[in-house]
């Protein structure tokens, strides 16, 4: 209904240094290939958005797609098994949102040995792990949000920040946090008071925020995951702290609504729908041995009140009416 997704502005990082480019997928696959897609989970609208891109693109290109989710970031062994199952089921290619890029390296080698092309999507991987991938570096993403915060801060304003990066040990939480800290370190007025890791559920984050409001009375910036921001809205209202700046390190439906209501300052996006779609195209190109961009990096952006009208929203989130499908049959 909206504007077409492609050509989409991206960075081509195949050579190691990002170069601005545009991505345009193939119109149709030569044959109805079978592509296996592995996600860490489908428990939030972020991964649903990636799935949306995957499904739409698979339908558009006329390939078979089966999607498996591991049920959460704590289930690496399950993703490993699912990877094995994908290879055993005779998939032509595998698209993987890795729970741990490092943890899947052996599987990537096996797939390579078996001649099954693998594409990495959304979650970062060790360099040159795969013949094709598309993701934003999480550290870079964290940096973007930090820069977004600094850009919005008044010149003399002291920023007392507590970060809520997400679950300790997930990898992505740590990377986000690191990037964010790197960015805000550029402003001497910005201080990190504390880092509160915790499961990225609203209830857990809420408890952390409530405690942080007590533990750090001078805190005036809450930076964290989307559920953190969601939980923070209510907690901050209750604590009577309308001055609190809330920033989310990634996007979901609630963030968009909250931004529109003015409850949060900003959130970051990496265009997950676009990532999903590009991954399918990369997979088809690998199967058909067509030229493929080795590392695509969507241009991560901070969305705030001023930029929200300019953003192509159907590259950020799946439509609210869309319910995930786990398999696509080529017509």
């Amino acid at each position: 209904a909206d504007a077409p997704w492609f050509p989409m502005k991206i960075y081509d990082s195949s050579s190691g240094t990002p170069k601005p480019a545009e991505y345009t997928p193939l119109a149709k696959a030569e044959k109805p290939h079978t592509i296996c897609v592995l996600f860490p989970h489908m428990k939030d609208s972020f991964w649903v958005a990636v799935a949306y891109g995957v499904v739409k693109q698979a339908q558009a290109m006329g390939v078979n797609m089966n999607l498996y989710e591991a049920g959460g970031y704590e289930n690496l062994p399950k993703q490993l098994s699912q990877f094995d199952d994908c290879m055993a089921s005779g998939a032509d290619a595998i698209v993987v949102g890795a729970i741990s890029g490092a943890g899947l390296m052996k599987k990537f080698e096996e797939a390579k040995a078996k001649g099954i092309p693998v594409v990495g999507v959304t979650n970062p991987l060790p360099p040159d792990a795969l013949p094709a991938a598309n993701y934003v570096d999480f550290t870079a993403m964290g940096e973007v949000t930090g820069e977004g915060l600094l850009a919005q801060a008044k010149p003399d304003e002291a920023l007392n920040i507590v970060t809520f990066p997400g679950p300790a040990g997930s990898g992505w939480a740590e990377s986000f946090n690191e990037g964010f800290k790197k960015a805000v370190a550029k402003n001497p007025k910005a201080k990190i008071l504390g880092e509160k890791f915790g499961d990225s559920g609203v209830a857990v984050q809420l408890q952390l925020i409530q405690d942080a409001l007590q533990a750090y009375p001078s805190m005036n910036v809450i930076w964290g995951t989307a559920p953190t921001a969601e939980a923070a809205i209510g907690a901050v209202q209750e604590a009577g702290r309308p001055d609190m700046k809330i920033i989310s390190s990634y996007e979901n439906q609630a963030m968009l609504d909250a931004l529109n209501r003015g409850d949060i300052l900003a959130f970051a996006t990496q265009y997950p729908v676009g990532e999903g779609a590009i991954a399918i195209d990369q997979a088809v190109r690998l199967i058909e041995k067509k030229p493929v961009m080795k590392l695509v990096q969507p241009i991560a952006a901070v969305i705030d009140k001023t930029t929200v009208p300019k953003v192509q929203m159907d590259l950020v989130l799946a439509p609210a009416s869309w319910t995930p499908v786990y398999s696509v049959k080529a017509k």
Partner: protein
Amino acid sequence: MSDIDAAPSPSGLPALRRLAVQAALPIALVLLLLAFAAVDMRVLSLANLLNIAQQTSYLALFAMAQTVVILTRGFDLALGPTVSMVSVGAALAMASGVAAGYDPGLVLLMGLAAGFGLGIACGTFNGAVIALLGVSPFVATLGSYNIAIGIATTLSGGRPVQGVPDLFSHLFYGGSIAGIPAAILIAALVGIVLHLVLTRTVYGRALYVIGTNPRAAAVAGLPVKAILVATYILCSTLAALGALMMTARTGSGEPNLGGSLSLQAIAAAVVGGTSLAGGRGGVGTAVVGALFVTILSNGMNLTRIDGYVQMVVLGAIVIAGVVLDRIRLEQRG
């Protein structure tokens, strides 16, 4: 018992029926495989069967670890976090060894020492708290669950630890003998040894008696506390071995590797027929349970059943498996 079992049972083919009930779980396994194969023949392909065997070997190892403590009426909630901790610890040790330019053999030894050392430490903690301080296994292992998670994430900084040498991965994962991958070989070997330990040694005998009647065991002069401590150490050591194998499989130390393994392993053990009331079960029940769970999820993946539906089916099957086991026992009397 068979000598007094001669009286006819009400059903037509008593012997056959009895056999069917006794071997219910293995039969169900085969039927399950066939049912999945009917949807997708690839389920029965050699590659997939090997795949199933390999996946089972990890879970079976963890289920065996749980089984030994379940035999004593306990369980180990900390098994998963122990796996994470061992994975991170071993990877860090090996990475530092590689960085220091040590000989590959030495690096390997460092990894094994760190991994098993952490596992044994964890088991000693669990065992000591349970046996000597009299804390219930639930609380004790919930405590070490938290502690191990904390250690794993702190040691690793929350990130995968890279730099696991190839030799290690080859030994515990990539290698194979006669086409059989290392993981299967190791699990089979451990299974056989553990089976012999449980059935042929004084320790194994004591384990069953303690699980059946701990007071009687104490009155009969068995060193109940020492055996309990040893059992928790055995459990954590098996977990550490599994963790090393999984670390070889991932090629990196993963702070989240254990995740939800604790409950999965307990479920596998119990579905296979290990009794949470203690004193009943063994290597066989652990392996059958692990096979059951693995085949189920492999089959559902290959036949493209939605993830959420899989969770519902898995839940129902776990219950059904245990019901089947109960009927089997009842019939045996």
